[in-house]
């Protein structure tokens, strides 16, 4: 099959970028979207041009590195999917595919389709941990965690940190990311000791990073590869209130 990619090219954060069109032939439906880009890059090398910079690592939907905006959707046309899981069979022969980097003030473009998501790391740094040193843990079965509670924590913990929530949110809100982490740890007995501080510090850091506020459009939960529920954000709001009252 043959498609035309319109890809955002931007050499560095300081210069202006623009979409550039590339016609790519000899693609097959079995190819993943990223393999199609690989294929394009090989052509560019042979032509002596600089390759398109885009990110990926695991290519099995779990590392969270491969986020790009494809034809107006985070990670492409399907719900709950990463870019690396998208295959060319989702497109038609002759399609034009627009590829842009995540757009958010807190995710500045580094080059072409690569953005800097270190703001997420700093939110984690602010409190997404249990302050127990290695070697200090009690016996694992000493504190029972009911299945429902463990499952709920796991649902929230599944976040892969790809940034699709921020990218697809018209306000660039990081509320889904932040709330998922808060709810994962705060709902487990191990995370209870620091629950209020965690909520306060992580949400504060989220604001400091310049993310927008959540207006519950619901785009994030549709684009989230792990299908993390937007209810996490509502729960986080309740936890903020709780931390103001009891914290």
């Amino acid at each position: 099959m043959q498609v035309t990619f319109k890809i955002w090219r931007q050499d560095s954060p300081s210069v202006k970028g623009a979409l550039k069109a590339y016609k790519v032939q000899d693609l097959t439906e079995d190819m993943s979207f990223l393999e199609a880009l690989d294929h394009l890059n090989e052509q560019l090398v042979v032509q002596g041009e600089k390759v398109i910079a885009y990110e990926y690592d695991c290519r099995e939907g779990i590392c969270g590195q491969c986020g790009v905006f494809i034809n107006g959707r985070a990670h492409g046309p399907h719900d709950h999917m990463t870019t690396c899981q998208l295959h060319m069979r989702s497109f038609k022969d002759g399609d034009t595919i627009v590829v842009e980097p995540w757009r958010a003030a807190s995710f500045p473009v580094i080059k072409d389709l690569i953005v800097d998501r270190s703001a997420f790391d700093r939110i984690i740094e602010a409190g997404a941990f249990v302050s127990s040193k290695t070697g200090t843990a009690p016996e694992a079965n000493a504190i029972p965690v009911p299945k429902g509670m463990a499952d709920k924590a796991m649902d929230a913990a599944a976040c892969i940190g790809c940034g699709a929530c921020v990218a697809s949110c018209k306000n660039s809100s990081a509320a889904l990311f932040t709330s998922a982490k808060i709810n994962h740890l705060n709902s487990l007995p191990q995370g209870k000791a620091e629950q209020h501080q965690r909520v306060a510090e992580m949400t504060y850091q989220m604001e400091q990073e310049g993310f927008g506020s959540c207006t519950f459009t619901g785009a994030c939960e549709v684009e989230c590869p792990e299908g993390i529920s937007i209810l996490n954000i509502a729960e986080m709001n309740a936890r903020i209130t709780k931390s103001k009252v009891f914290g």
Partner: protein
Amino acid sequence: MKLEAKIPEGKLEEKWRNYQVKSQLINPANKKKLKVIVVGSGLAGAGAAATLAELGYDVQCFCYQDSARRAHSVAAQGGINAAKNYQHDGDSVWRMFYDTLKGGDFRSREANTYRLAELSAPLIDHFVQQGVPFAREYGGTLVNRSFGGVQVQRTFYARGQTGQQLLLAAYSQLYKMVQAKKVEMLPRNEMLDLVVIDGKAKGIIVRDLVTGALKRYAADAVVLATGGYSRVFRLSTLAIGCNGSALWKAHKKGAFFGAPSFTQIHPTALPQSSEAQSKLTLMSESLRNDGRIWVPKKQEDSRKANDIPEEERDYYLERRYPSFGNLAPRDIASRAAKERIDAGYGVGRLKNAVYLDFKHAIEKFGLATIQDRYGNLFTMYKKITGIDAYNEPMQISPAAHFSMGGLWVDYELMTTIPGLYAVGECNFSDHGANRLGANSLLQASVDGYFILPNTINNYLAGVLKEAHPTTDHPEFEKAEAAVQAHIDRVLAVNGTQTVDHFHRELGKVMWQECAMSRNKAGLEKALAQISQIKAEFWKDVKVTGSDKELNTELEKALRLADFIELGLLMCTDALQREESCGAHFREEYQTEEGEAVRVDKEYSYVSAWEYDDGTFTLHKEELEFEFVQPTVRSYK
């Protein structure tokens, strides 16, 4: 040079305790003055960096990804083993030790393997305390399942995302120490060389992947936690960025490479579908708990899976290994699949797969139970292949997966370069010639959290009085200049072929001759072919862009240049070891039934290779089995 494994005295059960009692301690005030570099931020790296920082060392941690959370530990799906005996099924540290040693076909040290089993239980405690949402029973206690190669249930898991959850716990703990200003985290920085001063590891040269600048970092000790190198096959279950460069640079600077050819081929990956494929996605081995593997009894059977009646299906694992059945260890399951595929029974469009069928499990346990156990794996399968595995069997195929081989390390996890440590998958330590399922996350974590932080002090106590290295030392000068010259050389070739072209060529040779089954003629041919690829690479590779910018093509080229040389060593090692053991199957050494023949008399040692300007010298660490008797590994 004699290889000194430094195994402590005493009974197997007492060795680790005896070691700790005798190792040197450093007082907290002095720890602050000692700088440790950790390269890699996966489970081993992040665990080590966080724990060393908690102990008071001054730590710098590097990774090539944009965040520590991307490290490929994240992709391990199935679980982590621990000898907790929560299921009351007769498990114990000893049994786990024995399973691991036997699983590795008696090609690892007893003392190391025992320690792995011994430290597994506190590791689960640790991860639970860090907030890992392991699967639970309704009553709140932890759930276990069984994994390939064992008959007890000792695997802990967090849905199909165990690796991710453990890595996120380690990453969180690491960033807690970043917040506390005890760790400096340097993502998007790739190590390109090791700096050795007076025979000791004292620093690294890295390339800032955003600006392209080369930078020097000095430290009192360097810890490599850079993971596996199965991307040498190009098509593997590894992340695209996974590479062997840090190991290779260390090897070239004097660290011996242990059992480089021991590579695990995982039986349950998705089959290759095209030439352009960049990666083979792994489906968790846990699927083999409930799924049954089969091929049609008729060759080149073109019927759809569901149209083939029960009596015309060959459940070959159950047939050949009745007591372990579908849960036979990975090397055996992979080889059995290859045997069927090569014999013309393969299924799928390219006839390169076998079926993994859940029909019986769904009939027996109900759809809801199977969905609860494997739901996300089935979803993933559908995303990639477009096939609903609840209605028809999955198609799976073997794929290059785990590197048992790695830098040779002693009991302290130190390489043959003093002050250079290797932890996790990048060392050769506990798994012997084959790794058991769910032991990978375990080894990475135990190395990083529990072992290294208790052994590195033994070395650092000795260097405390020495002058701290600085980056203006002539060795740093020299190393940086060499790295720059290497980069310039790659860019100067300006040929006609892409990096991926050469990687595909290398991968084909390695997969053909140095994967599931190997033979003398093939390996000799491979050595010649790889030398040819190497020559062509340096004559005809083309990399566009410059080195002073973010240049993913250059990154790939530098990694591939090292993979090519590593491929030569792997084939050399496979050729030298004239026996079949674990994942290393030499066709010349098999029974009439096709089972492996181990040659203990001659090959009961760990091969440790020394680099000498393009040639490799073999050193042997004899394996002494004091506590168990190596037996023929039978899973019948």
